[in-house]
């Protein structure tokens, strides 16, 4: 962790988060495997929580620590059972407790079991969010589980998972217009400012988020990996969340979150990508 808005909990864990983000691409799943999702089948899919990929990830990231699931879990994941478009699957996380100093979601990890780099995002979250809800869009390469694991400030771990199918068809050629706008970072308040509770806000970064697995359809050469790896959002100078993210986030990465806001407050974002691009965005709340 570079910035220390939050206490790090990686000590004593089997593997640090940055190592995990950097290294898990090599979990035997690398190679040009990101491609069109199959249509239709198979239909005999289960919704059980486990998968070989998950067992491996769990052991590396959380060792043998217990992880609450089902009714006992404090986190809920909403993913379409059948995603309309595999390159951008909307994923929503709802936390079943408010963010308070006493007890809050400290770290949230989003995983896509079968993606070449299964850890999509790791967010360190502040109580100032009011509610640790999150919505983003993920690339889902194959039929498989999408998961969230939340670590609360009391150290407990909570998980929810959904099995996701992706509708059939060929993959779309990447959108290569407007390259000069890479990094433009925009905030939005989709429901306006809320006086009586957490306000939903969205930060979006114009970025191709290239995985390195796709061929340019004009040059027929691999497009080198180039993706956003860090999104830090603060409010009035204090950190709301730091998100370390990977290329499992879709093109034009976007995070919809919540914060306790008031008129005159100011949202700031700092963004870094894998080519050392640094970008900023801000919004003065009216």
């Amino acid at each position, binding site marked *: 962790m570079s910035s220390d808005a939050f206490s790090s909990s990686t000590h004593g864990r089997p593997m640090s988060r940055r190592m995990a983000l950097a290294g898990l691409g090599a979990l035997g799943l690398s190679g040009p495997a990101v*491609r*069109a*999702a*199959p*249509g*239709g*089948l198979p239909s005999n899919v289960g919704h059980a929580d486990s998968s070989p990929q998950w067992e491996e990830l769990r052991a590396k990231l959380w060792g043998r620590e217990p992880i609450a699931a089902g009714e006992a879990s404090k986190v809920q994941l*909403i993913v*379409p059972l059948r995603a*309309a*478009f595999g390159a*951008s699957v*909307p*994923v*929503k996380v709802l936390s079943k407790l408010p963010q308070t100093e006493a007890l809050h979601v400290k770290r949230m990890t989003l995983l896509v079991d079968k993606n070449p780099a299964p850890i999509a995002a790791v967010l360190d979250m502040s109580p100032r969010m009011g509610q640790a809800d999150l*919505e983003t*869009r993920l690339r889902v390469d194959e039929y498989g589980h999408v998961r969230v694991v939340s670590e609360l400030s009391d150290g407990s771990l909570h998980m929810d998972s959904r099995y996701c199918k992706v*509708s*059939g*068809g*060929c*993959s*779309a*050629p990447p*959108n290569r217009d*407007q390259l000069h*706008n890479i990094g*433009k970072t*925009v905030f939005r308040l*989709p*429901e306006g400012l809320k006086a009586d509770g957490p306000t939903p806000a969205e930060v*979006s970064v*114009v970025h191709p988020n290239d995985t390195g697995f*796709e*061929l*340019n*359809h*004009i*040059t*027929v050469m691999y497009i080198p990996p180039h993706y956003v790896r860090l999104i830090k959002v603060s409010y009035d100078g204090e950190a709301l969340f730091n998100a370390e993210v990977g290329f499992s986030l879709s*093109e*034009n990465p976007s995070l*919809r979150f919540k914060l306790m806001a008031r008129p005159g407050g100011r949202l700031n974002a700092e963004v870094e990508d894998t080519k050392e691009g640094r970008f900023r965005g801000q919004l003065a709340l009216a």
Partner: protein
Amino acid sequence: MPALPQHPASLRPTVHPDRRRLLALLGGLALPMLAQAARTEIEVLSLDPLPQPPAQALADGVYWVPGLPGEVDGRNVGRNGNTGFIVGPQGVVAIDAGVSRRHGEALLANIERVTDRPVKLLLITHARQEFLFGAAAFRARGIPVAMQRATAGLMTSRCEGCLDTLRGLLGEAHMAGTEMFKPDQLLDGPSALGLIGRPLRLLSWGHSSGPGDLAVLDEASGVVFTGGLCDRLRVPDLQDSRLQGWRDALAALRALQPRQVVPGHGPVGDVGVIDGVEDYLRALEQRLGQLLDAGVPLSEVAERAELGAYAGWDQYEVIHRRNAALLFLRLEHAQLLR
């Protein structure tokens, strides 16, 4: 099938089990047996038991073979795209080839039932699996395959993956002999084709429904094969499209006043086929513009983009939902850039 190599009767699939065991043993020892085994595969392909409607005449010398509705599955074995051919005094041009070598073989068999003139060229209209991979059957006979340069690029960049998926979905038997290929001729824009002694116009308006859309107009009959530009009673697919280019191409196509329109998917019709595509695109854009303005999150877009008028069209549940998500993301992207 005179073009197929002959083979010894002992290698027919109906060979006696004892004999087969013996042959298998020999095959492991003697290289010539391998060549014979390959011929057996061709024999199997020519005995295709799968559904393939006969070619239907649209005008003198102009035929189409209807594709089957639905997603690629075991029943339609991926034969979802329309194919066709035009017979001239000096030979035949085929238009699109189907999903597999078997499918291509079936098209060639259809052509042979109609004429004994040589097949001179296969034209591929756009880079979708159900139009492409039957090219293997044509290539096996030395028939050249042509497509727009941009279509070849898109095919090379993604279709190996489609082929892997098809093998998984349909099984090796259905996909036998089907492989990725390079076109023999690359087209750049529109041209005239006099190859079969019957004037054909190869129409291209740049990136429209896909990066290298090709349509084929038979001047004599006024029949046009639209490839990806039009689908009928099936939801058009936005995935590879540039919408403005697509609308421009549809307008240009209508201006040619074709008498019959053969869409990529769905039944043949008149210029109303073109109207149907335009109307759908307009309705989709209007709805998604509204959803974006209303601040709807992507997670709700597929459900809220219902367009009841099109609910009965083939692939509404898959392609329409994907179109909605795609167009929403594009409109949102444009909004971010403002």
